[in-house]
């Protein structure tokens, strides 16, 4: 029924014209940059804001604690003899950032230290001051009763808890939370890709319609072939983009490894560098089962096929992008819903809720890779989901091509859902 040469020609055009387009080159370069920025930005911002030098005055009645605080950080803490009334006044005028009142009975285990500030002390500052004061008070009080060193050691000791998973092969693995993180990232990438490539399909259909070329094309090929060619071409484009990213990522790893060892090896011998090297090794990416990559690509592809057939139908039913909002709504909802379940599913990937949600064809592209990253999925679930998704795609592309066929020849008015239904039922 489908004419193979024509389909190949269409796929080729859809693929090549986009591959050479500026937008493809730009997004291929920018998307990982943005992604990395999003990941490191919070830490970066925190380090940057921590660079701002802050200072708090210490009004100390004990005569001991203040000095110890200055001993920890002489810029952060400064001893003052100004009475609390004056400190209060200068805080109100904004001359000082904040001050601590340390009562003398604090060393007897009574009273409390008060920290006054203009509302600018965030969590980092508050917790730092709290822990500094607490440590000093504890040390002084332990000194006073001549606590033996062994007791202090016990007090300072932290109990280690190890987090291990046992794989199907019976091997123990340290669970660093990495796989959950991986699942999250995969879910987000697929989420973004559904939207981005869906929009590519929609615009492409709309462009052919508004530029009226579609009537010329439709006099040479069946609308279904054009639609399939378009969807396949853009899917290949998406795979190409992922391949480029994966390739660049792998190359980066290969290059990054020697560079890191080079730096570490620079002053080998010193205790510090071996420790740092050990730390770096602990941070290197754990082994990722190839099945996770395969699953990622597979669910991206199936999800793309499902959503692009929906986006294509919308594109064919409208003349301009602004008219598409209403028709796009249900599709956008379908993509967003799994995102809301991203946390509960990755938190407990084996729960009934997780299993059911991740098997719904519309949610699977995002939720199944999330689960796959964290734990091995039973074969029946994987197979069943893939089967369901293929089935959904076939039904949707059929419905969509019926809308498409009529939609591409309709100009001037935007169609309602009722009209779309009519187009589907038409001969």
């Amino acid at each position, binding site marked *: 029924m489908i004419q193979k040469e024509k389909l190949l020609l269409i796929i080729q055009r859809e693929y090549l014209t986009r591959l050479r*387009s500026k937008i493809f080159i730009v997004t291929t370069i920018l998307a990982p940059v943005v992604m990395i920025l999003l990941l490191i930005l919070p830490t970066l911002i925190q380090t940057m804001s921590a660079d701002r030098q802050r200072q708090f005055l210490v009004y100390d009645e004990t005569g001991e604690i203040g000095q110890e605080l200055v001993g920890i950080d002489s810029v952060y803490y400064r001893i003052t003899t100004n009475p609390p009334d004056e400190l209060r006044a200068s805080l109100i005028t904004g001359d000082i950032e904040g001050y601590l009142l340390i009562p003398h009975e604090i060393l007897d285990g009574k009273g409390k230290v008060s920290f006054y500030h203009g509302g600018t002390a965030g969590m980092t500052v508050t917790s730092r001051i709290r822990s500094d004061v607490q440590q000093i008070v504890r040390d002084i009080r332990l000194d006073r009763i001549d606590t033996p060193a062994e007791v202090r050691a016990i007090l300072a000791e932290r109990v280690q808890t190890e987090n291990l998973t046992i794989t199907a092969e019976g091997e123990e693995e340290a669970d660093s939370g990495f796989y959950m993180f991986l699942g999250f990232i995969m879910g987000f990438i697929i989420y973004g890709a559904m939207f981005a490539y869906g929009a590519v399909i929609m615009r492409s259909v709309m462009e*052919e319609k508004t*530029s009226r070329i579609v009537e010329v094309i439709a006099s*040479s090929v069946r609308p279904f072939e054009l639609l399939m060619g378009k969807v396949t071409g853009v899917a290949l484009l998406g795979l190409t983009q992922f391949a480029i990213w994966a390739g660049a990522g792998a190359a980066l790893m290969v290059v990054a490894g020697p560079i890191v060892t080079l730096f570490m090896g620079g002053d080998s011998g010193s205790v510090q560098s071996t420790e740092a090297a050990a730390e770096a090794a602990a941070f290197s990416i754990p082994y990722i089962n190839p099945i996770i990559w395969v699953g990622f690509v597979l669910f991206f592809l199936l999800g793309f096929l499902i959503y692009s057939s929906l986006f294509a139908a919308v594109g064919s039913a409208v003349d301009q992008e602004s008219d598409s909002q209403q028709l796009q709504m249900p599709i956008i909802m379908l993509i967003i819903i799994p995102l809301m379940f991203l946390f509960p599913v990755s938190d407990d990937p084996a729960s009934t809720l997780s299993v059911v949600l991740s098997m719904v064809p519309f949610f699977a592209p995002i939720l199944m890779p999330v689960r796959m990253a964290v734990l091995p999925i039973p074969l029946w679930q994987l197979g069943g989901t893939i089967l369901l998704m293929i089935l959904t795609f076939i039904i949707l592309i059929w419905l969509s091509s019926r809308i498409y066929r009529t939609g591409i*020849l309709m100009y001037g008015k935007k169609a309602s859902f009722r009209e779309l239904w009519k187009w589907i039922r038409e001969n």
Partner: protein
Amino acid sequence: MNDSIVEFREVTKQFGGTRAVDNVSFSVRSGRIFGLLGPNGAGKTTSIRMLTYILKPDSGSISMFGQPVGPETQKRIGYLPEERGLYKKMKVGEQLVYLCRLRGLSRQTARERIRYWLERFGAYDWIGQEVGELSKGMQQKIQFVATIAHDPDCLIFDEPFSGLDPINSEMLKEVILELRDAGKTIFFATHRMEQVEQLCDEIALFNNGQLILNGNLAEIRSSYGQNSIRLRFSGDSRFLNDLKNIRINNRSTNYAELRLLDGADDQQILRDAQNHVRIHTFELVQPSIQEIFIDSVSK
């Protein structure tokens, strides 16, 4: 009858409750220019879309070169839709090659043909430019090349002259006549009646989805007889308002076309005219196609 290239047999197409094409039958022979005429919404475009296999008829059948229309006949069609369109971001050459290959040409043949036609239209220099960068007139030429470059046996032009300047119109007309002489079957849909008279061998007149007139243009015109008067004059034209049993078409300051209705006497009209104005021309002629068009549609 056997050398008919295209045949519509009792073709009907409905959209919702309206019959866009209602039980239409006609046939077209090769080497003819076939005019598809009719007011807006008469069913011309729907007929063309069924002929190009973009739409399928609800009932009836359409055949081309002896086989039902389908993917195979699509390859032998060149279609220039009324609403023009090309991929704006594709280069002229690439785009034309793509369209030709979709109609089954090899890349090599496509390149040769495209070169020939672009040179003929003085457009070869644009081959590496994006279509969106070209002027409207240039795009029209490219679209025309896209319609004929794969050497189709059946050509369908929907308002091909709209938007063309007189020089390009003349060139296009020349090419269309040349294609006809080369044995192509040409469908020509238009509202412009003077072009129909200049180009068409046969016509089909549509109204409200029905075919109300079909046949050889010359035969149709002669069947109406010499029932029209062409009058050129100088002077006050108000006397025309008082003439009985006629209908006035195409009236201007010193020219009028009069259609004689039942009971009208051409000699009496000549005498009336003489009494009021200076007559330069008074001619009894066959009705113009416009006259036939209006006459048939208003029936």
